[in-house]
């Protein structure tokens, strides 16, 4: 994981994406997340909206943009569940903010960095979800470490592949 100096931070590429890509890719991720578990039940362990949030936040390197994008994706994801709106909105907003902040300091094009980042953010997603559901909403929710670790590993591995595919869609400034 290579840390960048202040000077080199200015030299970092800020990737831009066509507006259509910024709109369609998250929508496609949410659609796939809702549809594919019907055919492949194990697919539910993945969190494609989370991976997309991390990718765009990291690529744009703008915390505000990452926060807003994360909020929008999270709220859309919430709307498909039966839980109150805002659970995933809060989680994805935090993840988007942190991803963009990290992207300003670390070279996130390295596959190793991406792997660790996705693993950590998936675990953070689960912990935040547990906190919100149990503490803020007062609902009952179980927690299994093994399940969450498997989920984090799977998301990290699939995220690496997706990041490589999404890299082809970006435009350099």
């Amino acid at each position, binding site marked *: 994981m290579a840390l960048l100096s202040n000077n080199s931070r200015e030299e970092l590429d800020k990737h831009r994406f066509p507006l259509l890509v910024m709109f369609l890719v998250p*929508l496609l991720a*949410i*659609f796939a*997340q*809702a*549809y594919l*578990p*019907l055919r492949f*039940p194990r697919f*539910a*362990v993945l*969190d494609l*909206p989370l991976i997309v949030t991390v990718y765009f936040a990291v690529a744009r390197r703008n*915390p*505000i943009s990452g*926060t*807003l994008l994360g*909020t929008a994706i999270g*709220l*859309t*994801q919430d*709307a*498909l*569940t*039966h*839980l*109150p*709106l*805002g*659970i*995933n*909105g*809060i989680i994805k*907003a*935090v993840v988007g*903010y942190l991803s963009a*902040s990290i992207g300003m300091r670390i070279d996130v094009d390295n596959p190793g960095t991406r792997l660790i980042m996705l693993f950590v953010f998936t675990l953070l997603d689960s912990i935040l*979800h547990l906190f*919100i*559901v149990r503490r*803020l*909403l*007062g*609902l*009952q*929710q*179980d*927690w*299994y470490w093994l*399940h969450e670790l498997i*989920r984090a590993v799977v998301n990290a591995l699939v995220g690496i592949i997706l990041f490589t595919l999404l890299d082809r869609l970006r435009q350099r400034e």
Partner: protein
Amino acid sequence: MESFYSRYRNVLILVVILLAQVIGLAVQVRRPAAITGSDGRQVRLIRYWVVSLISPFERAFLFTGHGIRGAWNGYIDLRHVRQNNKDLQAEVDRLRLEQSSLAEDALQGQRLQKLLGFKQQYIYQTVAAQVIGTGGTDQSRVLYIDKGSSDGIHADMPVVTPDGVVGKIRDVFPHTAQIVEINDQTSGLGVILQKTRLRGILRGNATGQPEIVNILPDERIQPGEPVITSGGDQVYPRGLPVGIVERVISDPDRPPYMAILVHPAARLARLEEVLVITRIGSTLPSSEETDIITSEQKAADILAERLPGVAPTEPKLGPDGKPLPAANPNLPPPPVQPPLPLHPDRFTPGATPPATDLTPGASYPTQIFPAQTAPQPTTKPIAPAATAGQDASHVAAPVHHAKTLSPAASSAGTIPPATKSPAKQPAKPTAQPTTQEPQP
């Protein structure tokens, strides 16, 4: 102030957004309607927009997939269809026999329940629906179907498959509805263990497996015991299959209570079509009554085909060779005459001389009693024909009777003395003549 904002702009925006969403969560949870599961108008509107955005894609994918699969299954992959059809027909016959034998018990049960004032609920009407999507997360196990309020779907309607219970309707949109599955952590379903009759509440755990919680330790609960709906939750009709007990574990959060892990009867992970129960009632629906009557008639036909001794009665012919007119139904039926025995003995009616002709101490003619030294198997006379008014359901009762007979005995009309004696069952009619009677 301006420098403070420009310095902490990113963090401030994050805090504002988080705060707004936390307040939104608090408002949603605080609403009394949240307890019952329904959303507020604004939240419902947001959900409606998102569902309207996503569901067309889901429908398109589903339609395409079904088209390809239908073309393959309906036109190309048709191997073993004839054999399957034959097997299914045989199974239908077997099930009809079973149904007719159980129908009387069921009707009797209903009469007793009526006497006790017990309100049984029967499924009157269902709407078949395709599953088009899911909630997309492990924490929210919901499904979306392609039927909505325009198809008569309302909130809290139970959703089932022929295998078992799936869940209940939560949100309803014009052409889509959301189902909360029974393995969701927020679900609650009143269940009863079929053998031990223990009641409990079933909900999902974190891994998506249904479990019955808050059960005190009981050694009688064994894996494999069926779990059915209790009807106490006022949502699901009583008696629907929910699953079977997989194992019993101690509940770490609530000692000394136990949790019973249940394997769901419905394949919750791979649902394609479901039935939404849109109407239930307290009496047996007419369609089921008709089906029972049809089954009874079919069962009689099946029995007539299977039993070898049964042959259709030929109409009685008069001296002129024309069939005799049918007897007047208003007159009482003529006395039943037993058929002539093949091997008459001293018990055969008419074979014994009147008592006035008998001499004390005299022996009987030897030609009538050839088997005095060695016991002969008793001959069972063919039972008298059932009366015309006999209920068709009585046909089913002797099914076991017919099964217990050996093929040779049933075909010859003789019964081994050790298994059946006329003294033990003197007047029990067999099913054979009944099948010859015309059904009203």
